[in-house]
């Protein structure tokens, strides 16, 4: 393992360059402030800030570092609004809301916020070790992947995300199908035949994933908020100081460690991600350490468990993204889209060919963790003030930011119309209970899936047997079948925790 440590040292050299260090700090702070806006989870925050990040001409590793900072910060920001306002921006934050908001009602929001920061830090730190140890192994193994194995892997990722993302399989199928349809708009790269372009020149290039992400997530969020009562939300409650006592820390110590390990393991699996991780960690901790029955009525360990697990899962999810080039969640799908736009193709060769990128990112994630802890604990009071801004400024501001970003990057009025149309579609899908993450995953992975499928069939002369001709491929098909069988289990788990989750279904 000394080699890995040496490489990680090189990564720190990249991450500690003044520019990159500044970027991870800026990313963490900006990510926190955007991720905190009610209802805006990490995926929205990344989508909103991506065009800004693209606009600054950065080398790919710096760009990736900036995005990692935003990813991290937005998750913590999401915890702030979850704990203070009980509006989880993601499904994974729903569990944090149970005890976190109970603590806020009891006037102990400060310790809850501090615990969320500390637990995120522990989860992030432990899982970075996992990332550093596991990613090189996995990528060495993934070198044996040919087009057929990639097809099987991507199908596995689709099935895993679709079957875990929502309660209804048909709705997840519909979302995937819609995403694949969006992915096939434009010139077919292999035969140069226009598909679903309806004679529009602008459609020949296909649908920009940025436009799709902002439309489906940010614009649909604005519409969802417009639909609710227009009266402003309640401001932040009394909250005490963002400090933890030594007793509180030691009491939650093992909770954080256990939840981090669990969260990391779950995060590595495609599709499962933060939601399953935080539900699992919470229910496990409840069973192991809730001897006085205080979980659910404001127990700090009830905040520590999901927050540690969620952050560990976020790092775990980087493994399939970076080593296989296959994202397992909506957020990592957005990151993949951004990487592809930067001409970086994640995959088994990434660690070898672009070590500065992989190891620099790993080191930055660690620095981002430290930055969040030292910046956010003292600054949380400042962040909270953003939440007190009236809604009639916040929501239109989010809308204006998304539209300006798209226009500034594409300079196309046509894309603005697509943005609006997809916003309405995304709103309708939310109303109908359709998950949105599979649409983005399909949009980003669709072209890769098609290329690999057509390549492997061209190599085999049209023999479909090639898709299951290697042990790895067969294993992945079996895993995909198993992922289809998982949702009943997940549903049972959800039922055992959900009744305590309090108000409202989360937005995806």
């Amino acid at each position, binding site marked *: 393992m000394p080699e890995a440590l040496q490489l990680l040292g090189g990564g720190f050299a990249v991450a500690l360059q003044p520019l990159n260090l500044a970027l991870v700090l800026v990313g963490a702070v900006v990510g926190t402030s955007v991720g905190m806006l009610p209802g805006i989870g990490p995926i929205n925050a990344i989508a909103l800030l991506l065009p800004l990040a693209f606009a600054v001409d950065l080398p790919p590793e710096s760009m990736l570092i900036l995005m990692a900072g935003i990813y991290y910060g937005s998750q913590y920001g999401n915890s702030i609004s979850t704990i203070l306002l009980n509006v989880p921006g993601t499904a994974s934050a729903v569990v944090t809301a149970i005890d976190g908001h109970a603590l806020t009602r009891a006037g102990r929001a400060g310790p809850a916020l501090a615990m969320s920061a500390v637990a995120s830090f522990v989860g992030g730190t432990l899982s970075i070790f996992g990332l550093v140890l596991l990613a090189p192994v996995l990528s060495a193994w993934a070198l044996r992947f040919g087009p057929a194995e990639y097809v099987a892997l991507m199908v596995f990722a689709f099935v895993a995300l679709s079957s875990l993302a929502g309660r209804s399989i048909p709705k997840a199928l519909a979302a995937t199908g819609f995403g694949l349809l969006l992915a096939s708009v434009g010139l077919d790269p292999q035969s140069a035949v226009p598909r679903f372009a309806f004679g529009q020149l602008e459609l020949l290039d296909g649908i920009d994933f940025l436009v799709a992400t902002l439309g489906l997530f940010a614009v649909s969020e604005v519409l969802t908020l417009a639909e609710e009562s227009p009266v402003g939300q309640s401001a932040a409650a009394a909250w005490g100081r963002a400090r933890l006592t030594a007793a509180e820390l030691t009491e939650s110590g093992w909770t954080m460690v256990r939840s981090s390990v669990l969260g990391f393991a779950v995060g590595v699996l495609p599709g499962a991600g933060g939601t399953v991780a935080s539900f699992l960690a919470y229910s496990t901790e409840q069973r192991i350490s809730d001897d006085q029955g205080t979980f659910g009525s404001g127990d700090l360990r009830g905040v520590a468990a999901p927050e540690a697990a969620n952050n560990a899962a976020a790092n775990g999810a980087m493994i399939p993204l970076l080593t296989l080039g296959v994202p397992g969640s909506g957020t990592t799908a957005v990151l993949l889209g951004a990487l592809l736009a930067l001409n970086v193709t994640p995959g088994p060769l990434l660690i070898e060919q672009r070590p500065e990128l992989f190891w620099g990112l790993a080191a930055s994630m660690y620095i981002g963790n430290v930055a969040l802890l030292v910046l956010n604990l003292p600054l949380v009071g400042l962040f909270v003030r953003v939440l007190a801004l009236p809604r009639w400024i916040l929501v239109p501001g989010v809308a204006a930011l998304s539209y300006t970003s798209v226009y500034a990057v594409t300079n196309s*009025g046509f894309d603005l119309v697509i943005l609006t149309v997809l916003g309405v579609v995304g709103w309708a899908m939310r109303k109908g209970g359709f998950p949105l993450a599979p649409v983005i995953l399909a949009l980003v992975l669709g072209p890769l899936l098609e290329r690999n499928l057509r390549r492997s069939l061209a190599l085999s002369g049209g023999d479909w047997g090639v898709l299951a001709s290697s042990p790895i491929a067969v294993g992945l098909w079996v895993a995909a079948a198993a992922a289809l069988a998982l949702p009943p289990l997940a549903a049972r788990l959800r039922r055992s925790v959900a009744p305590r989750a309090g108000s409202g279904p989360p937005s995806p």
Partner: protein
Amino acid sequence: MSDARRWAVALGALGAGAGLAALGFRVAFVTDPLGPRAFPWLASALLLGAAVGLARHPGDDAVWPAPDARRRLAAVVVALLAWSFVLPLLGFVAATTLLLAALGRLFGSGWVRGLGAGLAVSGVLYLLFAWGLGLSLPAGPWG
């Protein structure tokens, strides 16, 4: 007709329409065994499968917005589309100030406050994008 059935009809129509449209994707010579049609057909098969699944197992009905909320939604969509079209004519700051004031009103502010806040926010956005990031935004007749 229940909500799920309406979705099933919509998804079925989308899937069937896409599948039929894909029939027209012809290539002059065979480049690979699958060709450009197979992938859209996979998408339309998923949509048709979803339609059948929803028709057979309709879940809970969604709560669709009340008439006043529906009007507010329509107004937001119209305002956003209008911004897309007047942007090159009025320039970024003026168009965005109007957009923010209109949206602000829909979210419960008055016109005067909305215009003031709109001017402030669009000014900040303009500075951020045009100066901070060096991207071009239309200046309009004042440029």
